[in-house]
């Protein structure tokens, strides 16, 4: 008995030593941020399909702990900006959207230059313009692309049926090869049903502008209102004058209500929009379908993964980013949330090509979006593209509110855009 007692005591002591030794090691590792446990904070918005990936990565890398922080789209970008200014508190990895990438790439010194971390190998994998958009003028790469937002046109087949329009996606695509045709279809719809056709004039302006070879700014960052913006503005004015617009601002409560109350029948939609429709109007499964967008092509949104340089675990963060943009994970994300990868090789992958989205009446979303993304022509986004867009959108809203006549609106738009470009 005595012996046994001694043995247990010894075993207990050994176990205790092992335990303390183990935890001591862990603590040390955490402090150094090197060999032990590493915590990576990942900031993004909405649902980027990371829940499953996080579990997978943590299982394969027991020393890495991933903390997901999903917030509101604008708030996340603003928060990142503030923490970059403060020099502390930024996440280890942050998603940045196309709407903000110009703002952040001009602060490239606040991010890890991925060219120093073997990023050059990735250039050939990406759509060239996607690679270029996150690159600073002096050749620093601040992010690796995750998704792109090639445009298609989502429509309510049930409402189309009521209006006596074709409902099959190929037949609908044939209805509107150009935006002029699109407006004519809209007029038919409005006269038959008495309801509005599009959600707002700004959601006509933006896709048309995205299809133009030159957007607000030329590559010299000079405002070019008479090119693409004029074309897009005129089309949006025509649509408003024809009474097609329900005048709802996107991503606002009224807009979400508009889905449910059938206030519009079509919506320009990039791949990621499907997730939003699904979340906003889950009861409309099978009522939506996807056709080609008038004019062909155009991109709306899409994100990059970036690593702010103030982080303590930069190498671990870069490793995780590289893993996230690897083909298997990109396809996984596409399947769970629908975000289309930005690496053209994946568009030939059967997992993407054969994918059908049940919510969108079983439309082959993989094929549709892959086709638009592959055919996209790059458009340069100027430094001031964001504020300029807001200024012009505000003018379109003024026309919709009846504060401004459509004939006088262009002059105001030019004036406000110039002001925003020089702000």
């Amino acid at each position: 008995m005595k012996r046994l007692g001694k043995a247990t005591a010894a075993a207990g002591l050994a176990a205790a030593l092992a335990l303390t030794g183990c935890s001591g090691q862990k603590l040390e590792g955490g402090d150094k941020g090197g060999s032990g446990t590493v915590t990576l904070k990942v900031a993004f918005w909405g649902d980027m399909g990371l829940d499953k990936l996080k579990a997978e990565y943590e299982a394969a890398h027991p020393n890495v702990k991933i903390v997901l922080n999903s917030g509101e789209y604008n708030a996340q970008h603003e928060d990142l900006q503030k923490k970059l200014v403060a020099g502390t508190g930024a996440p280890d990895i942050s998603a940045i959207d196309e709407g903000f990438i110009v703002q952040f790439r001009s602060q490239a010194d606040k991010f890890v230059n991925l060219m120093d971390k073997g990023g050059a190998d990735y250039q050939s994998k990406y759509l060239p313009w996607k690679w270029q958009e996150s690159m600073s003028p002096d050749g620093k790469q601040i992010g690796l692309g995750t998704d792109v937002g090639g445009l298609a046109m989502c429509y309510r087949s049930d409402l189309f049926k009521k209006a006596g329009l074709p409902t099959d996606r190929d037949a609908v695509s044939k209805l509107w090869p150009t935006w002029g045709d699109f407006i004519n279809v809209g007029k038919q719809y409005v006269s038959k049903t008495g309801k509005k056709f599009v959600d707002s004039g700004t959601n006509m302006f933006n896709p048309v502008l995205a299809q133009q070879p030159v957007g607000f700014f030329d590559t010299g960052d000079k405002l070019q209102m008479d090119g693409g913006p004029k074309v897009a503005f005129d089309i949006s004015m025509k649509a408003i004058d024809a009474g097609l617009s329900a005048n709802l601002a996107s991503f606002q409560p009224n807009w979400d209500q508009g889905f449910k109350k059938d206030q519009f029948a079509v919506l320009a939609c990039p791949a990621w929009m499907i997730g939003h429709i699904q979340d906003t109007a889950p009861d409309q499964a099978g009522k939506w379908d996807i056709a080609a967008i008038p004019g062909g092509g155009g991109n709306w949104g899409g994100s990059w993964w970036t690593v702010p340089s103030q982080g303590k675990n930069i190498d671990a963060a870069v490793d995780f980013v590289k893993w996230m943009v690897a083909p298997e994970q990109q396809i996984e994300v596409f399947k769970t949330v629908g975000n289309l990868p930005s690496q053209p090789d994946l568009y030939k992958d059967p997992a993407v090509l054969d994918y059908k989205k049940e919510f969108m009446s079983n439309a082959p979303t993989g094929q549709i979006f892959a086709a638009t993304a592959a055919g996209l022509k790059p458009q340069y986004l100027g430094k001031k593209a964001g504020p300029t867009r807001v200024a012009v959108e505000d003018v379109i809203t003024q026309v919709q509110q009846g504060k401004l006549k459509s004939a006088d609106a262009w002059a105001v738009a030019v004036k406000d855009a110039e002001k925003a470009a020089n702000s």
Partner: protein
Amino acid sequence: MSLTQLRPSPQHSAPPVQQSRAKLWLYRFDTRATPYVFIAPFFVLFAIFGLFPIVYNAVVSLRTWRLDEPDKDGWAGFANFTKLLTDSDFWNALYNTFGIFLLSTVPQLLLALIVANLLNRKLRGQTWWRIGILLPYLTPVVASTLVFSVFFARDNGMANWFLSLVGFGQEQPLDWRADKWSSWIAIATMVNWKWIGYNALLYLSAMQTIPKDVYEAAAVDGAGPWRQLWRITVPMIQPVVVFTVILSTIGGLQLFNEPMMFDQNPQSASGGSAHQFQTIAQLIYKVGWKDLNLGYAAAMSWALFLIILIVAGINAGLTKRIGGDR
């Protein structure tokens, strides 16, 4: 007390001089310095969170600091302030801020006075009423503004429904956000709703210190309730009135949440499609975090700070005149 007891002690006990001197010093320190130590936490916190930002803001306002063009950083002198003088956006925001401020502060304080006067009588369920008027103040401003935002919606909004009941806007619903006057009224309504109860409660507590016999004497002399309110109550609670006027001036001129969340497109911070209801606080936010021009935004903040100082000073002076100086 302790000091008077202590004074004779060094004379009585001569030998341990050193110890009692130390004690004396300690007691002196206690009586002279302790009050300062006790109030120090406020001033330390104020220095960190109040004074430092103000000074730092002044420094930033004299610099060019653009987040999107880091290479342009440097001293700018008064360039940001001279730009301010010719910036039509700034003057428009100033105009909006004062418009909404007048529409909110004046009715708000008058209604608060009347509500407090009513609550100062004998009522059934007195406490219930008194707490009830404070409820809007307890509601988080974001939550209430969201509700008001739906209330003032163009399509299916309750405000438009009420209007249609009395025969307005049946053919074309009123778009509250489209015009200056309608958006100002909507925003002022939110502000008034939130703050009337709070101010009423302040007035009420002041009113309860007024002796009853003053009113009795006035009633004997034939003064009606209205006259009693303006001739007795208001002059006698004048310090509280001055306090609420200054506080609502500061709050009104810093108005941010309500116009921000009322906007159709809040992330643009443009305060309506033609800046109909963009306040200065909103413009500062837009210039700083949307246009990424922190230097200019800091100059605007300082201008706003000075404007508030001046207006609050004028208002306090005016209210003092209205009150007891007659």
